[in-house]
């Protein structure tokens, strides 16, 4: 066990699916060799195939404490990162040639089924689910690594792959039930979200969190009673882990999505929510019912003009408070000096 645990809460009611988080992560961390297809942070439309495609059917994790067999997602499952014929299209190719992805049929990228979701028109439903490494309390990847190349940091519980020790055996990819580990073919190592540890070490929130225009990400220590994380996860219990049955105890939590009631033919609300509750339960466990009820009640309180600490936290009037102790401005920090011999 780590001494403390940092965690992230994402409020799905505020997620607008804009992918600024994905871009923030991409431009900061994964533009190097072998990383073209990597999106350590993704946002997918639920229900949907997710990233990697159909990851929920790939196994891994634990059941009753026992590791479960898992499937190793290939580069194709994550979606191709196409290159394009720019030169041909703009400089010297046949007149009128189209700009197109190279390599034949493009197949489906990591976010192909955006805004599709479930149901039949006009009884549709969908919502956005941003995902990153869950930095689990009981990381399946760590247990599975024969090189012991995966560490869980003592000071904050961030799970990191030691790239000097990793030899690319990829047991971690099989073991991780969330399938958030990528393989760098150029370097022969596994890579994944590092929870922006260089930023957190300097008191600056993760890029995906700090750059989120929807203001739905909270960062902080789980044991900090004054921080929003503790209140959302423990005090109000409205932030739930994704697929708790995978047995890894994720430290990324979600406030589940509300949806309006369906209506009967006369327009009377039936009380049945637009997003099927059994679907939400399949993602967030049985607690999702009481969480949604609480959110509805607290919103109603606010509508009547009564105070609600929970709503105030989720509204996040002062955005910087979403990040607990990680509230430093990136500009304000000392630029890291690497020793020159």
């Amino acid at each position: 066990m780590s001494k403390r645990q940092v965690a992230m809460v994402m409020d799905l009611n505020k997620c607008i699916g804009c992918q600024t988080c994905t871009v923030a992560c991409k431009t900061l961390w994964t533009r190097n060799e072998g990383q073209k297809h990597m999106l350590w942070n993704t946002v997918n439309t639920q229900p949907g195939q997710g990233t990697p495609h159909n990851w929920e059917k790939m196994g891994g994790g634990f059941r009753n404490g026992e590791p479960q067999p898992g499937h190793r997602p290939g580069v194709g499952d994550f979606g191709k990162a196409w290159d394009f014929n720019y030169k041909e299209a703009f400089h010297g190719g046949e007149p009128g040639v189209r700009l197109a992805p190279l390599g034949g049929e493009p197949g489906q990228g990591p976010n192909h089924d955006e805004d599709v979701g479930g149901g039949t028109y006009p009884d549709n439903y969908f919502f956005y689910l941003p995902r990153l490494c869950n930095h689990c309390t009981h990381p399946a990847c760590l247990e599975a690594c024969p090189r012991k190349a995966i560490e869980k940091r003592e000071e904050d519980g961030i799970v990191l792959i030691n790239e000097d020790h990793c030899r690319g055996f990829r047991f971690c990819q099989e073991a991780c039930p969330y399938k958030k580990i990528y393989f760098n073919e150029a370097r022969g190592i596994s890579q994944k979200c590092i929870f922006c540890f260089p930023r957190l070490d300097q008191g600056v929130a993760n890029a995906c969190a700090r750059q989120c225009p929807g203001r739905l990400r909270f960062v902080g220590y789980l044991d900090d009673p004054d921080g929003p994380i503790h209140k959302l996860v423990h005090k109000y219990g409205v932030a739930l882990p994704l697929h708790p049955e995978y047995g890894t105890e994720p430290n990324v939590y979600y406030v589940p999505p509300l949806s309006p009631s369906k209506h009967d033919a006369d327009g009377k609300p039936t009380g049945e929510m637009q997003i099927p509750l059994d679907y939400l339960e399949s993602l967030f466990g049985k607690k999702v019912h009481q969480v949604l009820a609480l959110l509805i009640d607290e919103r109603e309180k606010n509508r009547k003009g009564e105070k609600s600490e929970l709503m105030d936290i989720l509204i996040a009037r002062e955005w910087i408070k979403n990040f607990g102790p990680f509230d430093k401005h990136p500009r304000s920090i000392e630029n890291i000096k690497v020793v020159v011999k």
Partner: protein
Amino acid sequence: MSTNFDRRNFLKISAGASAGLAMHSFAAAGGAPARTLLGKPVPAYTGWKDVYRQQWTWDKVVRGTHITNCWYQAHCAWDVYVKDGLVFREEQAAEYEKVNDELPDYNPRGCNKGGCFSERMYDPTRVTHPLKRVGERGGNKWERVSWDAALTDIADTWLDVATKEGTDRVIWDIGPADDYAQNTAAFARISGLTQSVLLDMNTEIGDGHRGALETFGKISFESSADDYFYSDLILFWAGNPLYTQIPNAHFFTEAKYRGAKIISIAPDYNASAIKADLWIPAKPGTDAALALGVARLLIKDGKIKPDFIREQTDLVFLVRNDTQHFLTEADLKDGGKATVFYAYDEATRSVQPMPWKTLTLGELRPALEHTAHVRLKDGSEVAVSTVYSRMLLRIEDYTPEHVGRICGIEPWMVKRLAAEIGNAKRVRNTTQSTHSKLYHGNLATRAMALVFALTGQIGHKGAGFSGFPMLANEGVESFMIARNLKELDEHPPEIAAMFAQRMAAGDTLEQVINDMSNILMQPGALPFALPVNASGTLFWHIHAGISELSDHAADWNRGLKRSVKDHVSEALGKKWQPCVPKPGDDPRIMFSVMSNPLRRIRGNQKIVEVLLPKLAKYVVLDFRMNSSTRFADYVLPVSTWYERTNFKWVTPLSPYLTITNAATPALGESKSDFEAIFLLAKKIEERARARGIAVVRTPHGLEVNFSTLYQRMTFDGTYTEKDGEKVLKHIFEHGKLFGDVTWEQAKEKGFVRYTRISNDFVSAGNQTDIPKNDSIVALANHVQKKVPYPTTTRRIQFYLDHPLYHEYDEVLPRHKDAPTMGGNYPLLLSGGKARWSIHSTWRDSRLMMRMHRPEPYVVISVGDAAARGIKEMDWVSIRNDIGSFKARAAVSPTMQPGQTMIYNGWERHHFPKGGDMNSVSPSPINPVELAGGAGQHLRPFFIQGQGSMFDRETRVEIELAERAA
């Protein structure tokens, strides 16, 4: 160690950059200290964690932003991080101060596109050197030339055209480069000094908000985005703000937590509908019927605010039953004014003139519903009735059942919408430009405005009808108009006198500003050279032959009373609308400045077939290759937004002027468009002197002196091509819009909150206070300070007493079935702004395409796809009477059966040969949009009143196609 793959590729194509720019480089541990080519020491390898730590380091960080037209979501302050001479990433500045304790703050703003401009600016589409076409136009073969060679050739052609054919044969097609700052100063100035033509694009691109102009006399009015937090009902009516307002969207979700309800009215279950408490899936193009149905119920259920209606609207005005015209003083008295209108006063039980210098009614109590008889000046008696009485007749058929049938929704939805609006304390809608792209969208906007006016949901905190959000700077207009340095600081005496006289006579500042910008659409109207602004829509229709697509077509259920040609001749003949150069005077040179008409213009194939052959030179200035550069004679490389200091107009939604600083030098030989235009002016002057050309007479009787062009352009060298920032400083300081904040402070911080609305041509309509510690409330000056509206009646106007509106029975708002534009086909092609691009600016960014789809696609409903044997990812052909194009099929249950959708922004070169998404859009002229005339608020002025282009509801059929090449 690894190198940045994308950057390395970029360097191969970039002749301007030097080597050694890997994002991070380490020497092998234990080896001798290594040095990069830039001479920097390479740190020793100390461990994998340091690789990541090193990745998040930088040499320099400056405040920047993206000077493109993100519009509703403009603008965001970013930190731009530079390492080894290149921008390597950006992250939001996120330092917006809280407005007050109640409102959520504006942090962090930003979006997915802004977050990767550092990738886009170095990608393979970037242009770094002037290119001249080799071989035929569109042949995709280029040679590098020098700026001097390119400008000399262009300047010589310009002088040939101006002397032999006319000064107005040179056209400026301005896209998002119209920053209303540095660039605008440059092209407005060269337009005025050479009498070349600036195309006003706003209505042409489909953002004209015609219905707002018709109703409020202006389009520019909007509250701030944080004001949504005060609302208790937010209507996403005909828009998808989760796509179009990414940085503002948190105000919606947060208002919802505060207790606000959200209702989405849209045919498809879009990204915004999922956040709503109620989704009303009305058919495309039926918003007018729904709004009139709601208005009818609000009146029936007594949910209207009579005092607001009496004071703020023309609904109480009397109309003659014999002529159907407003009753005016000219009817009643010899020498009476046609601009004084009447109401029936319940207090004195008599017909009384309505006040016109103020909205305050005093003792008057104008009747809503009334019919009376009045004696005219000739002694005859006529029956008159109020606009309100007429409106009741107009809307009585719009029962929930009838509306349900038109809209394809359950009648209870109409009732529920009316009840929610009627019971809410504060209702606001989100701005949208969907209606501007529908042939009858103006009627829909007018009907929606009626709902807001009847309930008094205008001009109060958390309540309001959204127009066209735009907030600019007055200072740039002095560069448009000034003849000398003195006039940069104060209006020319001729114009100052006009303002003084009009204001003294009781006109509002806003009205005079609108009239002034109308004058800029009439070349030669004042005896000195002003910039020539012309209607983009009419330009393309007349000079690029777009109208040929519809003029010879069947009526397409437009209900035309006369041919469109006849309507256009009337509008030009009566000077209701401008077309410069005049029909028959072919354009000879066109500059597209960061503008992409071959991507944008509906029916764009006509540009290739009709306009391009008329042009001696087609010059595109841009930082990237695009649909238009493919057909250019010259491509001139423009620096990007991180390579120059600039700012741009913003919107009241986020009332912060946002400044971008030069983070790195411009790549290769690229120059700012500001600099390029000044250098062109210099070259024209040089060539004119060499060729002995001086004064040339314009077709409108003015004189233009080419031999002193640069001298006058620069105010005798005071503002030259090197002085872009000096121009900005002048603009910044001129309007005194930012309190005590100096230009230097604003530049350093990157953003500054407006302290008052700018009284410029494009944003004067806002006319409201900008409180330091509270939200901005649109139209508050009218509602709270009783300042008249800039309409003919000086009220929110629902009765449009113009001959064209009488001819088409649109004097009052109504529902009209959509025309069958394109022919009799079963599917309605609709569209929308995409999440993945700002117009086309990021559309072919590989990063954006990798995160969604790499090829253009049309979204088709499950049923329509199945009926045609179409499966996900199939290539399909979309066709109608005027053209066809191919795209991938995206089959989605979110799409309404009968509706199909292609999102905005795909480049022409994204599509397989044979057509693009504009190939099926004839965009016929709607005759009522040609309105104009003295005393009418329906006339062309900056960004409004000029006729729209329509692509929504185009009729198409879709079928399986051969696999594309």
